[in-house]
């Protein structure tokens, strides 16, 4: 059976499962948020300093907050059916637009961090497996343990202290030079300079995870019979590692990478705050503080779709890596 067919079959199954999952997530999130005390009108009134009962009432009426909970849910679902995420009372603009502004920032940050984590993690893990039990392995294990146990915000702060304050090589926060008129390649370089530190501090924890995971997976595969077959063919250790060991070891690693996309969204909140990066994480945090549930629901919905998409990608990657997955049983 062709690889393409297998991948398509895997994809179809994933998508069919995604629809009820997303619906369940929306409804569950909606009720969970209803449990929190206060609403957007309370916060807005509180921030304004004073408000009459009538003003509050008017605010609530305007945003539909005075309707019974089930009606609010029905309204929200109705909006979704028209591909609208609703209107934010706090920011005074459609949620879709609001998220649209912040999404690219977070996505690039996450993609960058994940790429760094997998690339460095795989390299270090392969090195550790190749030198298992010897000095390089021991040293790298210590580093992995360190990055694994130190919290991300602390690493973030220390990176700022070192690279921005002391050395002055990289900017300490923001997403681009304000007021700059860079175009083309220069603009990309400028962006990248701002992204290096946040992406690195987000990635380091995952570097540690992937390094250890790769090490374990490769050591396990190395003991398998087919690796002995490969050596018996006369292949060199480098070729055996890359062509026979690594590809088999990648299968458990991709599974973990997919599961980490959700975790990274959570980590992004902290990193975006430390580096004042204008992303979804910070928007979510502000929405919680402002009891802006429409925005929050939108972000949660989007995150869950992101996670599902990431898992679909992992499924496809696995169907491509492992011929035994996606076979018609």
């Amino acid at each position, binding site marked *: 059976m062709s690889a393409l067919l297998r991948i398509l079959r895997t994809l179809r199954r994933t998508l069919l499962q995604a629809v009820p999952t997303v619906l369940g997530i929306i409804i569950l999130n909606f009720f969970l948020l209803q449990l929190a005390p206060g609403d957007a009108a309370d916060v807005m009134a509180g921030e304004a300093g004073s408000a009459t009962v009538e003003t509050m009432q008017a605010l609530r009426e305007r945003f539909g907050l005075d309707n019974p909970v089930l009606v609010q849910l029905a309204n929200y679902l109705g909006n979704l059916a028209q591909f609208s995420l609703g209107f934010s009372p706090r920011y005074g603009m459609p949620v879709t637009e609001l998220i649209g502004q912040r999404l690219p920032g977070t996505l690039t940050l996450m993609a960058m961090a994940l790429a760094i984590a997998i690339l460095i993690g795989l390299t270090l893990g392969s090195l550790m497996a190749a030198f298992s039990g010897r000095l390089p392995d021991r040293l790298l294990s210590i580093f992995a343990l360190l990055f694994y146990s130190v919290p991300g915000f602390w690493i973030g702060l220390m990176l700022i202290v070192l690279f921005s304050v002391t050395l002055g090589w990289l900017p300490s926060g923001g997403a681009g030079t304000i007021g700059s008129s860079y175009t083309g390649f220069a603009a990309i370089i400028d962006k990248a300079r701002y992204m290096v530190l946040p992406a690195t501090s987000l990635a380091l924890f995952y570097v540690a995870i992937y390094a250890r995971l790769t090490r374990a997976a490769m050591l396990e595969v190395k003991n*398998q019979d087919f690796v002995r077959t490969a050596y018996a063919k006369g292949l060199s250790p480098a070729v055996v590692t890359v062509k026979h060991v690594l590809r088999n070891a990648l299968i458990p690693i991709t599974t973990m990478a997919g599961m980490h996309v959700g975790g990274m969204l959570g980590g992004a909140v902290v990193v975006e705050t430390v580096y004042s990066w204008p992303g979804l994480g910070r928007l979510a945090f502000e929405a919680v503080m402002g009891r802006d549930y429409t925005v929050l629901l939108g972000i949660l919905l989007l995150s869950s779709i992101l996670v599902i998409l990431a898992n679909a990608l992992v499924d496809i990657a696995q169907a491509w890596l*492992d*011929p035994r997955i996606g076979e018609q049983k």
Partner: protein
Amino acid sequence: MSPASSRLLEVENLTVRFGSADPVRHLSFSVDRGETVAVVGESGSGKSLSALALMRLLPRNAQIPNGRITFEGTDLLKLSDRDIRKVRGREIAMIFQEPMTSLNPVATIGNQIVEVLRLHEKLSKKEARARAIELLNLVKIPDAEKRVDDFPHQLSGGQRQRVMIAIAVACKPKLLIADEPTTALDATIQAQILELLDELRRKLSMGLLLITHDLGVVSRWSDRVVVMYHGDKLEELPASELFSPDRHPYTRGLAQASIRLEDGVHYTSRTLSEIRVVKDANGHNDYQIRQPVPRDLPPVANDDEPILQVDGLSVTYRTRNRENRALDKATLTLAKGETLGIVGESGSGKSTLSKAIMRLVNAESGSIRFQGQEITGLGPNQLQPVRRDLQMIFQDRFGSLNPRKSIRDILEAPLIVHGVRDAAERRRRIDETFEHVRLPLSAADRYPHEFSGGQRQRIGIARALILRPSLVICDEPVSALDVSIQAQILNLLVDLKRDLGLSYLFISHDLAVVQYISDRVIVMKDSRIIEESDHKTIWRQPKTDYTRALIAAAAGGETRSRALAS
């Protein structure tokens, strides 16, 4: 005679060392061009390590403190890593025991053959692929043009071993090392693979080094035999003399302990010889052969009601979109004190039959009467007392004992479940059972990993017998054991049958073992019972072609010795 003319490989004084242990000591032997040399030994004899040492494929913590491996005039042990890689796969190739795991699961079989061709023969991708298809044809994979893009999991075990052979002979090596090439395969496939190896050896005039524990295979397919025990080479002899009486005592013991179909030995006529290896005062091994005295068995009581009566039993496994009839209308009876052998290849339904009788899987239709009681419809609570009389011995000597429980815990559990509340009584029964299976009483407080394979099988038997069952189902009880251990366990089963009045349902793929232990034999194929006969008739006058093919495969390779004789 110049050495280059006929001598291919010369191993002199080879020692393999792990830390302070030497699992191979001062091994010397040679292989000539086009010759088949067999290295025979039981587990722990060092035969596989010696084979790996020839290719310099030993694990990293192994050393070779002394010895020489001369292959076509070069000492392989002195070659650089880069130069030995030019020998591997091109001059010397190797196939392994486990065809299921010896191929990379994520690469197509074609690419795995192409890889070795491109490495050593510098062929283009297209040429290599064409050669790969040729090679698949050579090893008789049907539809090679299509199968070349298959992945290993799409092939059966026998086909995978063929692919391994294709990889091994791709560069026309001068020496092929086959490490237990057929141990994991069914009897009919086994014969085909050995026949293929022999044919290729002649076609490509390779030397063949056959590593095996199976004396039957050795005597049929090799020219010379090296016998090893615990790292020492005991003797070297022509294969034709393997079963002659004036051999080394250990070789003789192995020969007597191994059962061959053509000898027609039956448990009622004689016991199997057991080998004892004792260290004498100088620390040398002393090999003794002991043949237990056969004792009289009570005749099978045919007039009584049968202990087990199975009628039209069918089992179907269902998955979402497929159903698989694993057992189709099986009918059999088993008299008290009788041993019923069940033979069949993998997938024939013999394990399903045993599980259905144990009520571990539910029957779709049919009936099982055990000791006069219909047990098909019984619920879990009603089955409990029945299970005490109906026990099972499993094949897997590692997997079927819980590694975190002591032997005493393992044996006590069934007693507690079946309501033996008195601790002293439980102790007494455990001691008694230990005596029956000939385990030392001190074994009770140790853990499964502290025992050898044969001892673990004794523990498995003890667990089955502790409840004093009347019927024991033995599912491949000796197929994972060495020949000498197999003989001990089979003798033990015969003794227990007499002493405890047991009946056996004995399942095995090994025809010779079934022939030895059974009173009657059933042959299964494709979920059906296709033949049933008493233990003499079935081997002499098989009714179906399939049984004839099975017998031919088991005794089969004789064709070669006959061909050589004529």
